[in-house]
């Protein structure tokens, strides 16, 4: 029983270390490919369209309603201490520094990160990747790098829209629902939000874009076991990306504080 237990722990530890090693090497191989071979521009733009442009509507909705809810919740607390004039700044800072980048990343992970895994995973099980290999096409150059570059580049733009619509959502609630002064909302944003806040949010977005495409492509390439395998890989991709984004968010926030 004890030996079985040790055996299980040992095997699990080896599996985890192997996965981390594969995951890291996957990234370095993608990085090497990016710097040693020509970037497929048309494929990168096509992926920007799929990951970014096609996610635009859900990002707008997410940003808008997050801003609206944040304004409502902030109002409840701030009304008690007579700080309604600061709601604009709180909504804007919350959206710009945290909620915009994180929620956008989580939404894009669910929509585009899962699609990256499912698409590459399906190509694996239907031997399309093997076909590319037999044609001597570098699958990192053809499939992986365009997705990672596209996602990393497009995520700050998506997040910027999320921020804008979040602030608009907050404005709608403050002005038309809570009937607060629009001047207070605007001036508190102008007085308390700095360019550095926006920069920080956009930097986070780029890192989250890298994570979701890296995990998505990695899980896709390592898919096995038919249609069920694609389903499992897609679920794992969304879960792993989301967790990594949340953990990375903490460390990035700490890091950006000191920059």
């Amino acid at each position, binding site marked *: 029983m004890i030996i079985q237990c040790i055996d299980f722990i040992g095997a699990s530890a080896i599996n985890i270390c192997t996965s981390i090693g594969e995951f890291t090497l996957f990234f370095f191989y993608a990085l090497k490919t990016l710097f040693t071979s020509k970037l497929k521009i048309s494929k990168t733009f096509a992926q920007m369209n799929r990951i970014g442009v096609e996610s635009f509507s859900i990002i707008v909705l997410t940003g808008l309603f997050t801003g609206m809810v944040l304004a409502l919740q902030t109002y409840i607390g701030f009304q008690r201490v007579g700080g309604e004039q600061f709601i604009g700044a709180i909504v804007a800072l919350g959206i710009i520094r945290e909620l915009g980048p994180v929620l956008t990343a989580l939404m894009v992970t669910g929509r585009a990160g899962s699609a990256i895994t499912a698409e590459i995973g399906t190509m694996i099980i*239907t031997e399309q990747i093997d076909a590319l290999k*037999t044609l001597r*096409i570098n699958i990192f150059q053809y499939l992986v790098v365009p997705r990672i570059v596209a996602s990393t580049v497009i995520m700050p733009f998506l997040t910027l829209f999320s921020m804008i619509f979040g602030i608009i959502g907050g404005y709608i609630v403050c002005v038309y629902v809570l009937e607060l002064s629009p001047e207070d909302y605007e001036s508190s944003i102008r007085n308390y939000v700095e360019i550095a806040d926006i920069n920080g949010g956009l930097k986070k977005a780029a890192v989250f874009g890298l994570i979701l495409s890296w995990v998505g492509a990695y899980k896709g390439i390592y898919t096995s076991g038919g249609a069920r395998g694609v389903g499992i890989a897609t679920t794992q991709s969304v879960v792993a990306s989301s967790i990594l984004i949340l953990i990375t968010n903490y460390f990035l926030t700490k890091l950006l504080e000191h920059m």
Partner: protein
Amino acid sequence: MKDAVNKDTIVKSKIKIVNLEKEFEGHFVSRGINLEIPEGQMTIIIGRSGEGKSVLLKQIIGLIQPTSGSIIIDGIDITELTGKKLDECFKKFGYVFQFAALLDSLNVYENIGITLIEQGYRHEEILSIVKEKLSLVQLSEDTLYKYPSELSGGMRKRVGLARTLVTNPEIILYDEPTTGLDPITSRVIHELMFDMQKQLKITSIIISHDVETFKYADKVALLNDGKIQYFGDAKTIWESDNPYIYQFIRGLTEGPITKEITYFKDKA
């Protein structure tokens, strides 16, 4: 049993496989395969499902690394090569997949011309080459901008073959090219493979369960229990007294090929 490595062969060997072994999680799929593939001829590899025929093909083309042994192509052991030298060697190969493995996001033109597109050829050049290959596999130009989902199984296999021909390979490996096709389409594919091999002097290796394929082939190899149990002329295969080939081509349940049959008997 005949020796699979024919030392006195008059036709030059294109591929020589020596003591090839492949292990997956403690289970040996290839257990010391020895085989010589003659140049410019069509060799069929037969054997029951799960015997590792596709694994053997994938080892030859480098999709799977062998555990041990050698694969010698034109006198060069590719298992000892790495990087660009290995890539150069693999340029001699084409691979036709069991279900064609066409990229479903690309149309027929893009699928056939993918290597040329990736190498930066001009559209006019690609189109002319793609049309030429399309006519070689007897497909009309109407299919050029169709997607794989709009094609029949036979058409997809022909597109897969055309895609392979774009790189002008010296060796083509076919993984069960007629599986799932009706007898007429199967015959068309067989004749197409035969014509390709004769016209272009291509060395072909075909994995097939289809007895019809013997008519077109020069050599037959039988893979059983991870080893080549028979290698000989396809024309005289029906006269062979090799117990493995005798049992296999007649579909007999009694004989030296017993592994799976015993399993079913036990279950019964």
